[in-house]
């Protein structure tokens, strides 16, 4: 009894009052908003990862002069993978320190965060949102190298047997190709594998494996559509 009197006296003397309820409600709302933001960021990043994988020419792996590991690292959208992982980790932290989040094991925290981001990211990719988002980053951030820019950079390597551009003319077994840097090439296609979807018509954008045979000549071994299989749209300058 004595100690409880001391406690009451201490509370009264110090003028301590319970913190208002709205303060805790606000903190809870901010935490929830933070979690949602992390999940959405993870989803956005994941959708761009899917977009990047869709755009990636994995057949480059066999044709690049670098080691396989270097080739894979060059092709992977590392920035977006890192952003996805970071977003999931921060979301997990948000779950862990929520009201009841401590009840979940680490695996469940990861599961909830990752699954939400993956599901929403996949929806974003399917709806075409990833392409729009990635293009926005490309136009708004000068330092950002877009997936398409990366792709063009990888393919504009005639010395290494890779060439890409727009067909400007077709003459029997010779394509007149203007690459994405504006240079003109004569591409000899005799004996080359031409992907079924490629029509070899003026205006079509293609990527070519082969060997450089002159300052502006190229012997093709393999011709594929620029946007990969299943892409009916071929935009100018590889974008």
């Amino acid at each position, binding site marked *: *009894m004595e100690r409880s009197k001391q406690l009451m006296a201490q509370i009264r003397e110090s003028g301590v009052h319970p913190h208002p309820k709205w303060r805790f409600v606000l903190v809870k709302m901010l935490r929830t908003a933070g979690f949602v933001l992390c999940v959405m960021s993870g989803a956005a990043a994941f959708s761009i990862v899917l977009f990047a994988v869709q755009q990636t020419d994995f057949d480059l792996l066999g044709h690049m002069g670098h080691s396989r590991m270097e080739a894979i690292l060059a092709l992977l959208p590392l920035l977006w993978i890192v952003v996805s992982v970071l977003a999931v980790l921060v979301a997990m932290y948000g779950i862990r320190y929520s009201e009841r989040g401590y009840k979940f094991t680490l695996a469940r925290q990861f599961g909830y965060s990752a699954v939400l981001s993956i599901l929403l990211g996949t929806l974003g990719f399917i709806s075409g949102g990833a392409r729009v988002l990635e293009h926005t980053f490309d136009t708004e951030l000068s330092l950002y190298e877009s997936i398409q820019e990366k792709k063009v950079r990888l393919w504009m390597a005639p010395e290494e047997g890779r060439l890409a551009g727009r067909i400007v003319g077709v003459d029997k077994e010779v394509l007149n190709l203007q690459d994405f840097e504006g240079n003109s090439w004569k591409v000899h296609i005799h004996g080359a594998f031409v992907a079924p979807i490629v029509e070899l018509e003026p205006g079509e954008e293609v990527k070519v494996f082969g060997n450089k045979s002159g300052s502006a000549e190229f012997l093709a071994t393999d011709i594929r559509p620029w946007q990969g299989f299943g892409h009916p749209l071929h935009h100018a300058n590889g974008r």
Partner: protein
Amino acid sequence: MLVASVLCKELSDAEILQKSLEDLDYFSCIFERYERQLMRYILRLARMPEQEAQDILQDAFIKIWKNLHAMDPRMKISSWIFRIVHNETISWLRKRNAFGRGALLSWEEKYDDMEMPSFAEEERAGLKEQKVMDLLNDLPFAHREILVLRFLEELSYEEISDVLRIPEGTVATRINRAKKGFARLATEQGIQFEL
């Protein structure tokens, strides 16, 4: 004027806290209800003078008073109170940099004025209380706290989960490890259990 204990006994924890918001004196009911148990808990977690344990308890209850509206209705109020007291004790230990080091008081001095705790399992096993407490004090803090909560305070896994803010599965794992650590320490010190 404090509330008469007869009135306090009729009220549940939730009712007491609700009434406290209207009349501060009701808050003394919750303090008196848990004081003994919580003092015992603090002293089991760390050896310290009783006055310091009282200070920790007072600070914890002031914190409880300040954060009344933060109470999660899905949690038992006793678990919430335990959690705050637990955290205050940890903060004290960190400040004093005294995790498991040195005894400030002997167990006899501490327990002179307090009712001896009941040790359900240990009594059945025939262990001497003194040896148990000494062994507990030699354990790493993480093992000590979980054994105290489970076997001395007799909290359920769910309650321990709420106090320590860890999943129930982790509670089970830690109890298992702590028991093994306790048994190993007992063997090293040549202490035999009587079952």
